[in-house]
């Protein structure tokens, strides 16, 4: 297996966190993994993205220039990365915040109104996990159980009340038909 993923959106949307959950799950499943964030002064409000690689062979460059999977959580992110997606790649779009469609015809696209779903269900701030749920549903190689186990690892103990919410959000995305 080899998945090269870019997750992109605003700072504060939990972009880096959902990437971290993915690599933790990949590591616990015995894969090679790497996670590389964009970094800089735009801690909040600017753009954020991270490169995630999950592979069965040693990982060379941790930079994903041409993602097989793009998770885009705002319009600038889709604009920036759409052309980079490999042919026959997959795009997951937060359709609450991105009103346009993916123009590429050689990319399989899923539209999830994750920000709206999060807000409607008292899960503001967990649109990232709803997106993640949909990704593991659609992309072979990810298991729901592994992701849930990873969330248990990654959510700090002092935020125990967030654990259930995160898991619920992933499940909501996983079960979203669309």
């Amino acid at each position: 297996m080899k998945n090269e993923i870019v997750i992109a959106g605003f700072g504060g949307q939990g972009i880096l966190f959902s990437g971290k959950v993915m690599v933790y799950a990949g590591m616990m499943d015995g894969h090679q993994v790497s996670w590389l964030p964009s970094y800089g002064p735009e801690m909040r409000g600017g753009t954020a993205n991270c490169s995630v690689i999950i592979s069965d062979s040693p990982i060379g460059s941790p930079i994903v220039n041409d993602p097989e999977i793009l998770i885009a959580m705002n319009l600038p992110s889709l604009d920036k990365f759409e052309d980079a997606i490999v042919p026959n790649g997959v795009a997951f779009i937060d359709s609450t915040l991105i009103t346009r469609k993916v123009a590429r015809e050689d990319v399989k696209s899923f539209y999830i109104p994750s920000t709206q779903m999060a807000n409607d269900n008292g899960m503001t701030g967990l649109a990232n996990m709803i997106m993640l749920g949909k990704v593991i549903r659609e992309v072979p190689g990810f298991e729901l159980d592994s992701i849930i186990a990873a969330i248990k690892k990654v959510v700090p103990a002092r935020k125990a009340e967030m654990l259930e919410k995160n898991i619920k959000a992933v499940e909501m995305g996983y079960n979203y038909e669309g």
Partner: protein
Amino acid sequence: MAEKVLMKGNEALAEAAMRAGCRFFFGYPITPQTEVAAYMAKHMRKNGGTYLQAESEIAAINMVLGAASAGQRVLTSSSSPGISLKSEGISYLAGSDLPAVIINIQRGGPGLGGIQPSQSDYFQATRGLGHGDFHVIVVAPSTVQEMVNLTYDAFDMADLYRMPVMILGDGILGQMMEPAEFPTESSRKLPAKDWATTGTKGERKKNIVNSLYLDPAELERTNFERYERYEKIKATEQKAECFMTEDADIVVVAYGAAARVAKNAVLAARDAGIKVGIVRPITLWPYPSDTLKEVAKTAKAFLSVELSMGQMVEDIKLSIDCAKPVYLCNRTGGMVMKPDEVLAKIKEISGGLK
């Protein structure tokens, strides 16, 4: 070996340092290495050690000098502009024969430069990390696991050779997360620190930690002695990893994060039928010249892949006595080449060879 944990490179460096017995950290915030300090701040005092945020990089390196004088394992960490400020203190550490470990998570320069990953402090680290005749050992990890392993070894080499050791990383390695596991202890046999200024306790003559020699003959002698030690280090501590070099016509030379990008390109070039391999220097001083010399017996051309303006080309040429052409594929200022750019260069060189 314990369970694998997922950590940022910067955090792994800090954790490894503590596990290697470092109980003193003095630093000053600078992107992209701040996680080292943050991790230390969180854990060092709980572990019975000292974490102190100094008023400047200059103060931090001198606090390092103080704690090292007292015989303690001590670490400081910074990024390029901060290392320039530390270079005064590093020269004094070298001149006083003090062990210490210095991390440089490089960013683009010169001047304030940028904050994105770079390898443009290569000359500074390997040639001129301060005034005077001296070297520091420079290790260049390429994975988070290697950041862990080399941190243990950096402290050991510092103590063994009584000199500063620099861990030279970059923003990619510092910021990325990979699984790592932590060895339980280091393996080298180390001498007692009977030179340390800990108070005589009435049991010995006083110790002096000093780099001042007003008598030029005496200063020359200490420099000669130090360079004899450097020769020994050159003979025993060179380290490099070879990948697919046995039959390689073209040998890529790259370290740190650039080596990872280059590896993707090498694998792609092999798929295209080009005989190419990589020598990845793990020590930058001493430079792994012996490995390059050996490889140069069969290789037809070398390609330096680096995130700087060809700074490593000199060391490759010196290592092989300019016996083969040395090409350059580089980006700088915080830009990172794509594997395709390296692949194109490999193909170009390969075309010229036929």
